[in-house]
């Protein structure tokens, strides 16, 4: 296993604090910097430089990311991602919601792959509770998460194509994504923000006849992926726009805590599903997709191949999914079925207690992590024994991956900056929380 020692070798610029690639100053200072030729980095060519603001309302910043670009002509020298334009105070809200309501808050963080946030919150809560989730729930969670990865990567293909000018890619990408969302709506009742994976299992069993729907997906998506290959991979213009753009070395990616497709694109094979198996990933075989040169084209190719790997996993789940109940039968955690409430007083009490005050989670702290389409999505949960989490921190993969932006854009053209932002594929809901 390629365990590259953390040697920043040929790439000292990450360590140097003279702002080698990152514009480490506030907006006001950045505005005045340009007029001051005595600055050690800009030196006497200060008048050649200008600070351009690629602001929150920009078509290609994937939401409300803002970039301060220090540029000389068309070449980006230093840049600084400014975030916070979608800060929703979710971690504070998380401390005011019970453990049962938690998934509704967490699922709105990474809105391209909401089921992963729910999964990591549920796993952390279950570890604190010390309960076991029935087999069927584990496999249903895996099925839904892999399909969510397919939907999220299709969203990436769509927006990445549009950012690079292949506007028809936006239409194709969404066409496939609608198919997956239709299956989600059938099972969970919602196209997004499902609140489907809850502590103790899943909200509802799979809709009957789900095998045919999944087989329908498995039939139509792979041939269309080959269409994307023809449309994008084989085109010299598309390759020229992406190859050699935004190169990242494995050591640099590790130093900047980048995870997911960005880390794998540098040739460093690290995937939590294989290296720290959770759910039932050790009973399913799939390949970890790895790139060669660590540039924007590799990130694109890794995500395209990961869609196929996820579909391969879904194929295996189709016939491995066990029967049984889809939620833990522990009375304290799972509210009783609606019919039972009329019959037994105890069920009514449990129902009332769970839905008003919520179940109490023993005191303790835990860190659970899953492999979301953007990288390692972690949930650090501290409980003080009460029904509400004392502290809920979500480690957003895009938050860490966004730090690689200045190093990827250093010294490249502004047009490449758009390609780099799109290849990092940040979701601002998860970055700003």
């Amino acid at each position: 296993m390629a365990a590259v020692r953390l040697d920043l070798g040929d790439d000292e610029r990450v360590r140097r604090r003279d702002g080698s690639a990152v514009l480490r100053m506030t907006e006001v200072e950045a505005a005045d910097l340009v007029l001051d030729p005595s600055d050690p980095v800009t030196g006497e060519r200060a008048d050649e430089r200008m600070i351009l603001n690629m602001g929150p309302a920009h078509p290609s910043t994937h939401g409300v990311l803002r970039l301060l670009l220090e540029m000389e002509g068309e070449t980006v020298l230093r840049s600084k991602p400014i975030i916070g334009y979608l800060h929703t105070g979710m971690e504070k809200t998380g401390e005011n919601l019970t453990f049962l309501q938690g998934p509704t808050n967490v699922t709105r963080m990474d809105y391209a792959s909401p089921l992963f946030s729910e999964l990591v919150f549920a796993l952390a809560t279950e570890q604190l509770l010390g309960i076991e989730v029935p087999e069927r729930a584990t496999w249903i969670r895996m099925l839904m998460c892999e399909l969510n990865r397919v939907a999220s990567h299709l969203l990436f293909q769509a927006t990445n194509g549009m950012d690079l000018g292949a506007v028809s890619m936006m239409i194709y990408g969404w066409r496939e994504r609608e198919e997956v969302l239709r299956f989600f709506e059938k099972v969970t009742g919602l196209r997004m923000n499902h609140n489907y994976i809850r502590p103790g299992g899943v909200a509802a069993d799979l809709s009957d006849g789900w095998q045919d729907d999944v087989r329908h997906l498995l039939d139509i998506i792979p041939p269309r992926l080959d269409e994307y290959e023809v449309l994008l991979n084989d085109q010299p213009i598309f390759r020229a726009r992406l190859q050699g753009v935004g190169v990242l070395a494995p050591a640099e990616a590790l130093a900047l805590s980048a995870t997911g497709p960005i880390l794998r694109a540098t040739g460093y094979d690290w995937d939590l599903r294989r290296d720290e198996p959770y759910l039932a990933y050790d009973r399913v075989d799939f390949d970890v997709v790895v790139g060669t040169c660590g540039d924007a084209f590799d990130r694109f190719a890794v995500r395209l191949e990961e869609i196929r790997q996820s579909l391969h996993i879904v194929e295996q789940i189709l016939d491995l999914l066990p029967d049984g109940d889809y939620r833990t039968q522990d009375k304290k955690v799972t509210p009783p079925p609606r019919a039972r409430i009329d019959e037994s007083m105890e069920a009514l009490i449990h129902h009332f207690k769970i839905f008003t005050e919520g179940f109490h989670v023993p005191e303790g702290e835990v860190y659970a992590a899953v492999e979301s389409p953007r990288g390692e999505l972690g949930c650090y949960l501290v409980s003080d024994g009460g029904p509400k989490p004392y502290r809920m921190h979500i480690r957003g993969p895009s938050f860490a991956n966004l730090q690689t932006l200045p190093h990827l854009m250093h010294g490249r053209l502004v047009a490449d900056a758009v390609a780099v932002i799109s290849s990092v594929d940040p979701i601002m809901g998860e970055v700003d929380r």
Partner: protein
Amino acid sequence: MSETDVATEAHEDAPVASTALFGQAVLYPDRGAYLATVESLRDEGYCTATDLTIVDYLTHPGRSGLPGGVQPERFEVVVGLFDHARRERVRLRIQVPADDPTVPSLFDLFPGTEAMEREAWDLFGVSFEGHPDHSRILLPEDWVGHPLRKDEGIGAIPVQFKSASDRR
């Protein structure tokens, strides 16, 4: 389950108490030995810092799970490191008193914690010495206060029911 075996690892000066929670090692270095501990862990093979966050224990002082030698304080900096070769995680919990909320910055060891430390400063008000760009990251630059502290309310506005149309 969480078995608490206090394995004190011998370091140059203060021994670092450690427990194991849910299969993940947890170390409790004090502020002085913080950088040294992280440096030695990094040389051992912990090649990436996955997470850095802060917990404010103002309204939950009596928390169990802390090994004997550690004196619980109000703030607790929690750093997650990951060793990819041995597939092992370690979590450092560093106690930070309320009256002097400063902690040395990890930027020189793990540049990836730069944004995480800025977020910790922004939402909790614990400053990091030696951080290259010590400014707010999520809140507007002129924001007063650190919202994730336990003594600051959630800032909810009582819902004013606007003129619900009477036709319903």
